[in-house]
C-alpha cells in the first residue's frame, strides 16, 4: 500500500502530536507535586499512563480507519485517541478534569468516550476486546463495512477476555482486529514472566484466524500489516490478531520509581526512536523535505499547546454535577 505525501506528512505530524501531548502532560502532571509528590495534587491528579514511544502502533493502524470505525483503547489511551481523531481540546480538558472535557470531567484519563469518533477506552486490563466485538457485530448487522479495533498491552493478552473475544470474533467472522501492543512490560512484570510463549500472534492458530507479529517499532511496518487485516475485515472475511513490538519511554505510570527496569533500557530504546525513523523513511522516499517535516512538527506542537491552554483555562464542573449523568 503506497502512502501519498500528504498521508505521510499527516502521520508524521500525528506522531509528534502524540509525543508532545505526552511530554506536556508529564510536565503538567508534576505541577503541584513538588517538592512532595502527592498523587492527588496538582492540575492533573490520579494515575497517569503515558504512551510516548508507542506512537507507531496507534498511527500505523488508525491511518486505515474512518470515523465510523470503532477503536477501543486501554488504560494508556492517548496515542490511540489522538490517532483516531479525537479532538485534542476535549481530550486534554477531560484529563484536566474540566467541564469542557469529553466526559465533563467525570471520566478522566483512563475513561475517554468520543461518540462522534467512535473511540472509547477503559482502565480495566483486557476489557476492550468484548466491546470491540460488539461494535463489529453491529456493523455487520447494519450491513456496513465498518471495522472495529481493540488495542491491548501484551500483559492483557493473558486475561480471559482475550480468549473469549477471539473465539467469538472468529466464530461469527466479525470485522474486528485485535492488536497487542508489546512494550515488554506490564507494570514491573516482563513479558517472559507473564506469557508462556514469546509471540502472542501464534495464539491466532487457536481460533483459526491470521496472526502476524510486527517485530519493530516502525510505523510503516505497522501500516503495511494492518492494511491487509483491515481490508480483510472490510471484505467480511473476519478477524485478525496482530502483535506489535513497541517501546515504553516513561514509567508504567508517572511517579513509578522503575526499580525493576534496567537503568539504561530507555536510553537504548530512544536511540531507535520511531519518529526519527519515520522521518528517515519519508526522506528516503523523497516524499517530503526536511522543512516540510519541521513544519509538521511545529504544527503538532502548536496544536498541543493550544489544547493544553484550552484545558487549563476551562472551568471545573460544579460539585453538584457529580449527581448527573448516571442515566441519560
Amino acid at each position, binding site marked *: 500500500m503506497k502512502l501519498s505525501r500528504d498521508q505521510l506528512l499527516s502521520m508524521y505530524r500525528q506522531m509528534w502530536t502524540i509525543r508532545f501531548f505526552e511530554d506536556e502532560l508529564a510536565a503538567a502532571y508534576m505541577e503541584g507535586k513538588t517538592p512532595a509528590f502527592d498523587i492527588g495534587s496538582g492540575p492533573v491528579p490520579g494515575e497517569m499512563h503515558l504512551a510516548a514511544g508507542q506512537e507507531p502502533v496507534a498511527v500505523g493502524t488508525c491511518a486505515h480507519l474512518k470515523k465510523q470505525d*470503532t477503536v*477501543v483503547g486501554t488504560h494508556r489511551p492517548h496515542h490511540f485517541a489522538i490517532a483516531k481523531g479525537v479532538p485534542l481540546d476535549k481530550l486534554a480538558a477531560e484529563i484536566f478534569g474540566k467541564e469542557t*472535557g*469529553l*466526559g*465533563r*470531567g*467525570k*471520566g*478522566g484519563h483512563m*475513561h475517554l*468516550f468520543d*461518540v462522534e469518533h*467512535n473511540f*472509547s477506552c*477503559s482502565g*480495566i486490563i483486557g*476489557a476492550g*476486546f*468484548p*466491546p*470491540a*466485538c*460488539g*461494535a*463489529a*457485530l*453491529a*456493523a455487520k*448487522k*447494519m450491513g456496513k463495512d465498518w471495522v*472495529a479495533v481493540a488495542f491491548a498491552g501484551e500483559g492483557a493478552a493473558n486475561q*480471559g*477476555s482475550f*480468549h*473469549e*473475544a477471539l*473465539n*467469538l470474533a472468529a*466464530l461469527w467472522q466479525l470485522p474486528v482486529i485485535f492488536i497487542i501492543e508489546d512494550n515488554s512490560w506490564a507494570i514491573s512484570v516482563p513479558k517472559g514472566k507473564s506469557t508462556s510463549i514469546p509471540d502472542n500472534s501464534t495464539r491466532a492458530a487457536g481460533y483459526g484466524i491470521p496472526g502476524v507479529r510486527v517485530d519493530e517499532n516502525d510505523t510503516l511496518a505497522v501500516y503495511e500489516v494492518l492494511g491487509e487485516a483491515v481490508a480483510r475485515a472490510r471484505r467480511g472475511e473476519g478477524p485478525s490478531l496482530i502483535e506489535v513490538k513497541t517501546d515504553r519511554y516513561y514509567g508504567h505510570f508517572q511517579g513509578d520509581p522503575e526499580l525493576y527496569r534496567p537503568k539504561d533500557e530507555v536510553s537504548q530504546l530512544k536511540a531507535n526512536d520511531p519518529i526519527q525513523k519515520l522521518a528517515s523513511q519519508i526522506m528516503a522516499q523523497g516524499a517530503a523535505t526536511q522543512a516540510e517535516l519541521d513544519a509538521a512538527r511545529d504544527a503538532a506542537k502548536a496544536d498541543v499547546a493550544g489544547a493544553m491552554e484550552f484545558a487549563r483555562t476551562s472551568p471545573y464542573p460544579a460539585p453538584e454535577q457529580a449527581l*448527573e*449523568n*448516571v*442515566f*441519560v
Partner: protein
Amino acid sequence: MANERELTMAKAISEAIAQEMERDPRVFVLGEDVAVYGGIFGATQGLVEKFGPDRVMDTPISETAFIGAATGAAAAGMRPVVELMFVDFFGVCMDQIYNHLAKNTYMSGGNARFPVVLMTAMGGGYNDAAQHSQVLYGLFAHVPGLKIVVPSNAYDAKGLMISAIRDDNPVMYFFHKGLMGLGWMKYPERTITPVPEKAYTIPFGVADIKRPGKDVTIVALAMMVQRALDAADELAQEGIDAEVIDLRTLVPLDRDAVINSVKKTHKLIVVDEDYKGFGMTGEIAAIVAESALDYLDAPVKRLAVPNVPIPYSRPLEQFVIPSVEAIGNAARQLVKK
C-alpha cells in the same frame, strides 16, 4: 375478550421481546441457548422461529465476551437484549457489567448511551443448590448505573420488559424461575394473569400495592410478593389486614410508597429471597429509619436468607427461604405487640 387472555410470565416476556423486535429492527437477542432451545426458562421461546438466527443468537459459553459485545453493539446503535442464563453466573462477567455497561454513560458525561437489557433468571426453592438458586439483585442495586427490574407476575413482566427495551439506559431484568409458569416447575397461580395483546409500558420506580391493608406493611419482590399475598390471605381470616407492596424496580426505588404505607400501618416487614445482610431488607429498613422513624410503632422485621449459601437438601433449603408461614408469623407478632 382479548383483554382477558391469560399468560404465563415466560410467555409474557417473550411476547414483549417479540413485539419490540417487530417495532424496532435494532433490537436483537443473544445468549446461551436462547435460540434453538428458546431460553432455558422460556423467556425467548418462539423468537428464533419468527426472527431467524441473525436476530436471535446462540452464543458460546463466554459471558464476558457476549455481554461485553452487547455493550459495544449498543454503543454502535443496536439495542441488544442479552441473557445471562442464571444470575448466579455473574461472577464470570461482572467486570463487563458493572465497570463498563453500568458506568460508561456516567464516565462519558452522559454523551454515550448503552441501551442494553440484561435479563437473567434468579431464585431457588427447587433444590438447585448454592450456585443456581440466588437472587442477588441487592448486589446489582448497590453498584450505580443499572436499572433493576424484578417482576412478580405476567402483567408486570410484559410491561416492564417493554419499558426496559425502550429505555436508553442499561436495564437488568430479573425473572424468578419459579414464577415463569413453566410446565416443569411449580409456580403460584397468581403469577399467571390477564395480559393485553398490545404493547404497553409500566414505568420504572413505581411500586405496586398488590394488596392494600391497614395493619402492617409487607415490602417484597418477585416470589416473596406471592408468598406475602398468600400470607395476607391467611392473616385476613384472622382479622389482620396486611398491605403488600411490590417494589417492581429496585433502581429507581419508590421510597415514597414504602414511607407512605408505613405512615398508615406503623409496622414494617421486609421480605426477601436475597441474603439478609447488606442488601434489600437493610436498605428498606434504613429508609424508614431515616424518613419515617416516628411513625414506626414496633421494631422493623426483616425476613431473608440468613447469610448462608443456599443449601441443596430440601429441608435445609426450605428452612432458609422465607415461607408463607414465616411471613404470617412475623405479622402476627408485630400486630400483637
